[in-house]
């Protein structure tokens, strides 16, 4: 029997659900500043469990985990923010249905990527294009733009984070990019 490949499982089963997860978290948690932390913790719990035994219904498992995490957060908070969770009882666990967002993402991907690039600051966009489309190295980009290599690094790293948010996250993230 082959070892369970957690990385492949995470990319295949969980990442495509990120848009739905982000929507769920944003809908049920008022403090926007906590959302990426919550996302990280949901992923951690899900993957820790999956490393022991992969869940049979990843989508259902992901949303159950998210729901439990939100409940834990409310219970353990020293001051319970009543308004933090809009309605815990009403948290609906999405079913393991064929997810429409998967096909929609595939169809619109080039457009989404373009839109994502357009939201980057001009210089960041330029650097990402040179690296991704033209295939230049970091050093070549730095030389062509006449900037330090560490500046190129910063732009590339920022671009990578922004692109991940666009590709996996909720489309409303489009407005919140650097």
């Amino acid at each position: 029997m082959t070892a369970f490949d957690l990385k492949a499982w995470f990319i295949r089963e969980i990442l495509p659900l990120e848009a739905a997860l982000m929507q769920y978290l944003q809908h049920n948690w008022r403090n926007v500043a906590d959302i990426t932390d919550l996302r990280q913790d949901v992923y951690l719990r899900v993957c820790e469990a999956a490393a022991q035994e992969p869940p049979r219904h990843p989508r259902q498992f992901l949303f159950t985990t998210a729901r439990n995490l939100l409940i834990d957060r409310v219970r353990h908070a020293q001051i319970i923010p009543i308004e933090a969770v809009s309605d815990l009882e009403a948290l609906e666990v999405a079913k393991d249905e064929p997810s429409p967002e998967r096909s929609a993402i595939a169809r619109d991907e080039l457009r989404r990527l373009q839109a994502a690039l357009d939201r980057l600051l001009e210089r960041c966009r330029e650097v990402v294009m040179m690296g991704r489309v033209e295939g230049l190295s970091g050093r070549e980009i730095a030389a062509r733009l006449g900037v330090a290599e560490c500046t190129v690094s910063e732009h590339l790293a920022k671009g990578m984070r922004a692109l991940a948010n666009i590709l996996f996250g909720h489309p409303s993230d489009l407005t919140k990019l650097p």
Partner: protein
Amino acid sequence: MNEHATTSSTTIEETASDWLQRQRFFDWDAAAQAELDAWLAQSLAHKLAYWRLEAAWDRTERLKVLRAAEKLAPKVVPRHVNRWIFAVGAAAALAAVVTIVRTQALPRSVVTQTYATTAGGHKTITLTDGSQIELNTNTVLRIATDNPRNVWLDKGEAYFQIRHNDANPFVVIAAGHRVTDLGTAFLLRSTNSRVSLSLIEGRARIDSINPDMQPHSAVLSPGQVAVATANSLSTSTKPAVELDNELGWRRGIVIFHHTTLDAAVAEFNRYGNEKLAVSDETVGALMLNGTFPTHDTQAFIRVAQQVLHLKVQKDGSRLVLSR
């Protein structure tokens, strides 16, 4: 309490993105890899953040199609420009104009020769490989100087009879689309944002190339017609007779077959004769059949008068057909 809650996801993500860009864009060796491995081994949160960014970045591989579009138009090395101008001077008989253009679809500069017809014009261009391009009325077409099999139809209509060559496919760019010959004769008409491709023989492929558009493509067989706009592509089949009628202009004629007067007038007006108009919708909806020389408005008017019993009145520069 959740022990992960204290670790800032933002910090982890920033570190992960820094590793990823270093690995992908800067010198990378075993020592660097060992360092990264050590960081990843510190916690599952590190791994997840890294995997997520890596998966996203690998999906942006698709952006390279933009480069594929650029490749069509080779970069211009400035020192070549003078030589091209000289070369065209020798070919002045072609009445060609050299321009250095930046097109929407192809961000690179490319040196092209422009061929144009005015209203009523008709011109045939023969390429060195024997391929022929016939320009209909009011058409602008550019040919890449260094590879005459790269062509832009900027406006109007052209008929392409192409000698197929697998090694150097014939490519036409029109209204944000690329038409690639797969052994072909085809008719291509381009308006501002709409391109219509009719396949006469062989096969041809049409793809959208403007990255702002929804990607779409189709491969056509003889008798098929594709109409593409920024966000749509539809194909249909036309009877051979109808396709043949569309090509009437190659023989200097327009052919109407169950055509509305509206459409016939619009077609006639393309050829720069006296401009015709219809007085109202009912007149425009009348059907007619017939074959007319493209330059002979009078023949058309006579049919309108004698067969459709319409009146013809001059209104400024227009001739208006009415009951």
